[in-house]
């Protein structure tokens, strides 16, 4: 249920992203989803990959500051109003979203939204009650 996401501290300098992508590529690690939160000085790169442990080791060994964060992947209809149908029950259930990002699934007509909640267990309960489908972690790593 809970998906492991890598968060990497990155200075806002030319070539930092390219270097991380190259290191992961050379280790045959596939990036499933990605988002970057940035300010003028630094950014936080968030990655979901097919092999979390290996990616974590590679990045740490090369001197990056990396942390593991648990997130939830929710499947939403890839149509107008799709995202709203998920957010509404969360609002009603009083669940706070720290951040979120989305991508579109290749083989289906669904989109996947990655949520970082303030209280992940409470969020999962609310989603289950609203019958919103949460993707198993293994599925997300293989997307």
């Amino acid at each position, binding site marked *: 249920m809970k998906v492991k*996401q890598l*968060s990497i*501290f*990155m*200075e806002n300098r030319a070539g*930092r992203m390219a270097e991380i992508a190259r290191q992961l590529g050379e280790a045959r690690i596939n990036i499933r989803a990605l988002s970057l*939160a940035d*300010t003028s*000085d*630094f950014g*936080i790169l*968030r990655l979901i990959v097919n092999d979390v442990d290996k990616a974590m080791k590679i990045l740490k060994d090369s*001197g*990056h*500051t*990396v*942390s593991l*964060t648990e997130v939830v992947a929710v499947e939403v209809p890839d149509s107008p109003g799709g995202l709203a149908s998920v957010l509404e029950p969360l609002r009603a259930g009083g669940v706070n979203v*720290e*951040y979120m990002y989305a991508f579109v699934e290749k083989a289906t007509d669904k989109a996947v939204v990655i949520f*970082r909640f303030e209280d992940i267990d409470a969020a999962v309960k609310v989603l289950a009650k609203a019958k919103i489908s949460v993707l198993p972690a293994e599925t997300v790593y293989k997307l």
Partner: protein
Amino acid sequence: MTTQRPAVAIWDPEHECMPASDLRELQLERLKKIVRKMWNKVPYYRQKMQVVGVRPSDIKSLEDIQKLPFTTKDDLRLCFPYDAFAVPLEQVVRIHASSGTTGKSTVVGYTRKDLDTWTNVVARFLVSGGLTSKDIVHIAFSYGLFTGGFGLHYGVERVGASVIPVSAGRSERQISIMRDFGSTALVCTPSYAIYLAEVMQGMGVKPGDLKLRLGYFGAESWTQRMRQEIESKMGVFATDNYGLSEIIGPGVSGECVYQNGMHISEDHFYPELIDPDTCKPVDARQGGELVVTTLTKEAIPLIRYRTRDICKLMPEPCPCGRTTVRMSKISGRSDDMLIIRGVNVFPSQVEEVLLDVKGTLPHYQLVVQREGALDKLEVRVEVSEDYFSDEMKKLHGMEKLIEHKLENLLGLRAAVKLVEPKTIERSEGKAKRVLDLRPKD
């Protein structure tokens, strides 16, 4: 705008132009007296003397001063607040303090006679830089625990010139007051003078609109290039002066109109130069750490106080006629203290804040740069796992918290910059704590 070199004038010719042999005799007599006083009245220093096995009777010549132990800022910190005083508090009429490294400052006291001495040595460098009783002196040093404001204030009064005690801050008002009151001399830090010149430009005030002719700049080190810039932009004849609160405040030394080294008031302050690593005396012209003994101080006499300031001494005669030795501009520090906008900053203070915020110490670096006229302090912090958060607002919150605590502790705004691990330069595995990028000349 060209500035005119004022005529040579000497405030206290008896002492400033004393023949060398008379001066040495006076210094020795005063040294013997102060050593005896320390032995009798100041337990921490008596203990230091006992440890190395030296007694007051061992001081028979000026060279014998080398037998005496040094005094450091740490000694004074251990004496916080009053244990270094050689007189009872009822004889102390003024207290000042300098910024300290660990929250505790160094407290200094003055008897009535100390204040008189201080005022006299300030008057000396004011007159040696061209001041007369006709001048109107604008003091933009802050008045408070810092010795700059009050030290200059009473010196100017002693010379008989008029003081405008403006104190620091509100730069546009400073310019208006100088223009409206017809100030002829300016007292502030050199970096603030450059800033004021910029503010003047912004207000459309030209040097010719002001009556300024003299500038006395101190409390931080500055370069020849800054002198030229200040002189041309403000139309003043600019001189440097030096002092530190532990010794007396401003007035330990000051430049004459030849602008070539600061004359030390040797009848009150006995200078030595040492190698900061071996603590052995070095050749004066070669340069080393300045060590000062106060020969006449009553409230807090100090013997062989290590200033941590690196300079050279110039014993050769000066065309102005003074016989006192001159010291060069300060070229650096033998510890890692930085002086930023007149404020003393030690890396250990930053360390204290970082430890306070997260409980562990990251690699960090203080970077000082000069942007336009003002010195800016940036504190770079390597983001290790302890300091990292996946949430932007937490990282930002931490940055702001460190900035806030730094400003509280240092009295100076510092920008915190989070950087990746291993990006701060290391020498022999140790992070370089300080990167001073300010121009040196």
